[in-house]
């Protein structure tokens, strides 16, 4: 104990000496002086505080070069939700190393789950369970959105397991193709589900989509006694409320996936990713671990989809095209597969570019050079170029996972492609 204290003292003296030498670098020195127990969480806590306050100070922020203003709070909600989906996909692709090209199916599942149980679509039935902001006599099933978020997560996880089960025996490309197949079936079911398989059953309301979908809220009792918002839909700061909820969901996802990664299950995933055969030989249960990775990934995708549908107040089939699967996959790859910080960075960056950034950059280009380019039109081409360039020159992503990077460079993740190398 004394030795530790002495060592800490020495460090402090060193830091002070440093601070003295570089007078301007006071902050760095202070940082070094902090005890490690504080130093670890300080940065995340600061970032979370900064993120939590965003709706309050966003309007007072300075203008950025090129892209103009900071993203709108509504855009920020979408960014957080897509980042959450990317983190969910990261469990499947980044941790377990299973390529899922149909992640949009889980997003759709979550969105339609909340659509079924919190909208007037089943007008023949009327049931209200803790719903807020809806006329109690209105038709349809209305369950409180909080419960539905959890329900959507669980239902989607079950779908994930169902999708995962037939693919357990398959490896690599075949797996990717089966998930792609599910990802293609899902939007078609959504689009044509108003007449399901020609039977006349209306499941999804077809191209019109399901709307309006209820908002979450805390009800009148909590509103009167604790001052919590009664219903998000009627609140003055509706978008900010959704923003904070989305942030809370994202943080919960970060926490869960982080803890999972370090758990027994997470280590099993990483072992499977690195070498499936070796992992099986060491007694890692392949089928069970893989199924769990699908379930966990689907769970977060489902919650994100349900919440986003509630935020938008509706769910429409065109939200669930194959492109979205690739879009979310790009976030994971661009950021750095398997690295939570990387995936968050990739998710925020790409969803921002998608929602506002590209349009803003296009406007800046056009006004600066007097050109007339419709930048959003090139969006998917630009994403394609990002995918190709990142894979060719930085396959480990922007913020790589150290372990994953070693795998990519040494190529132990899978049998190298027939062991070929160009001469």
């Amino acid at each position, binding site marked *: 104990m004394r030795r530790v204290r002495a060592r800490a003292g020495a460090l402090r003296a060193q830091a002070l000496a440093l601070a003295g030498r570089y007078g301007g670098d006071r902050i760095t020195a202070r940082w070094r002086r902090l005890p490690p127990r504080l130093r670890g969480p300080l940065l995340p806590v600061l970032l979370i505080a900064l993120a939590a306050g965003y709706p309050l100070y966003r309007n007072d922020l300075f203008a950025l070069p090129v892209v103009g203003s900071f993203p709108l709070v509504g855009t920020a909600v979408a960014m957080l939700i897509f980042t959450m989906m990317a983190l969910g996909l990261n469990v499947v692709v980044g941790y377990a*190393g299973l*390529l899922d*090209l149909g992640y949009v199916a889980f997003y759709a599942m979550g969105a339609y789950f909340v659509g079924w149980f919190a909208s007037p679509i089943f007008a023949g039935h009327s049931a209200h369970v803790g719903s807020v902001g809806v006329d109690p006599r209105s038709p349809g099933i209305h369950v409180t959105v909080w419960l539905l978020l959890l329900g959507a997560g669980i239902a989607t996880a079950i779908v994930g397991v169902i999708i995962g089960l*037939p*693919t357990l*025996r*398959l*490896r*690599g*490309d*075949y797996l*990717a*193709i*089966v998930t*792609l*197949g*599910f990802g*293609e*079936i899902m939007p*078609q*079911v959504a*689009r*044509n589900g108003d*007449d399901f*398989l*020609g039977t006349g059953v209306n499941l999804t309301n077809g191209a019109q989509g399901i709307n309006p979908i209820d908002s979450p809220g805390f009800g009148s009792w909590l509103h009167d006694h604790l001052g919590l918002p009664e219903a998000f839909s009627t609140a003055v700061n509706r978008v900010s409320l959704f923003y904070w909820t989305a942030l809370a969901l994202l943080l919960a996802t970060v926490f869960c996936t982080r803890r999972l990664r370090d758990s027994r299950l997470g280590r099993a995933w990483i072992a499977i990713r690195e070498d499936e055969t070796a992992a099986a030989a060491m007694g890692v249960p392949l089928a069970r671990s893989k199924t769990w990775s699908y379930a966990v990934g689907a769970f977060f995708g489902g919650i994100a989809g349900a919440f986003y549908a509630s935020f938008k107040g509706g769910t429409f089939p065109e939200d669930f095209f*194959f492109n979205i699967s*690739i879009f979310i*996959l790009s976030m994971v*790859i661009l950021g750095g597969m398997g690295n939570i910080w990387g995936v968050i960075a990739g998710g925020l960056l790409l969803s921002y570019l998608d929602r506002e950034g590209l349009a803003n950059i296009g406007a800046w280009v056009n006004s600066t050079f007097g050109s007339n380019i419709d930048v959003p*039109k*090139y969006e*998917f*081409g630009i*994403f*394609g*170029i*990002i*995918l*190709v360039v990142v*894979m*060719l020159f930085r*396959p480990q992503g922007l913020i790589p996972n150290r372990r994953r990077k070693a*795998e*990519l460079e040494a*190529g132990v*993740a*899978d*049998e*190298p*492609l*027939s*062991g*070929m*190398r*160009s*001469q």
Partner: protein
Amino acid sequence: MGGAILLGALAIWIVGNFLQTPASFASVLMIGITNGAIFGLIALGYTLVYGILELINFAHGDVFMLGGMMAATLALGLFSLVEGTSAYVLYPALLGTLVIAMVFCAALNALIELVAYRRLRGAPRLAPLITAVGVSFILQNVGLIWKGPGYVSLPRLLPQGEVFSAGGVSYTWDKLIVLLVTAPVLVGLILLVQRTRAGKAMRAVAQDPDAARLMGIDVDRTISFTFALAGALAGAAGFLYALYVTTLRFDVGFQQGLLAFTAAVLGGIGNLAGAVLGALIIGLIQAFNEGLGWLSPGSDWTQSIVFSVLILILVLRPEGLLGERTPEGG
């Protein structure tokens, strides 16, 4: 077991439809075979590339789409063909269009391999798959910018007259022309792979690239050649699609490409005859589902059905109908 029940249900459905309306069944059958022929040309491209690199070339469908766009541009713009152009002009012009579309797609596909896949030969398999998806997006965007977001439509250039008609069912010339273009291409391809030196080199590289290199085969050139060959087939398919279906759009390559890929997997990926068989089956499933009246879900559900078939095949018989059991699929 499960497979047997499914096959039985399928057989009952097909026979039931045949008994209900024999005439429309026959015409739907012909449509299915024609569509299957076009799918077959695309599916062969997937299977060739997979056979040699074990790579699902996601961009292949989009190469096909650009081939169709090229054919449309040439037929309408360069040769200014219209409905009723005299046969002496029409057929040479169409032949020219076909050749240029094939060369264009061959060059494009070889270029894609050079830029997006070659550097990643030693990388984990995920890497080239992702660049393939990226290239697919880029090509779709090219199509979108080139021809706009709407459908490009062509006049019905192929003759629509009857070749023969029997029992109220007529077989039209345009369907026959599709088969007349497809059949020699298929025969030529199989001869090329089985009888020529280049084909032998392809098979050698597919089996063992290192051993092939030791035997003096230029592996890079062989792979480029395979991509060019696959691209040429996609170009021919694009040409036929543009003329036979007469409407195409930037995303048509993605949709048709997925169906064709399914066909390749269905037949046993890496197997040339299997790809053609799978394509015929997919073409028939599509035509039956969209054309038959009795208990068929209709065109809204074609993709769902095709992908369900794909998933079932992969689960029940991962090596495909004619494929060999591999560690990957088994």
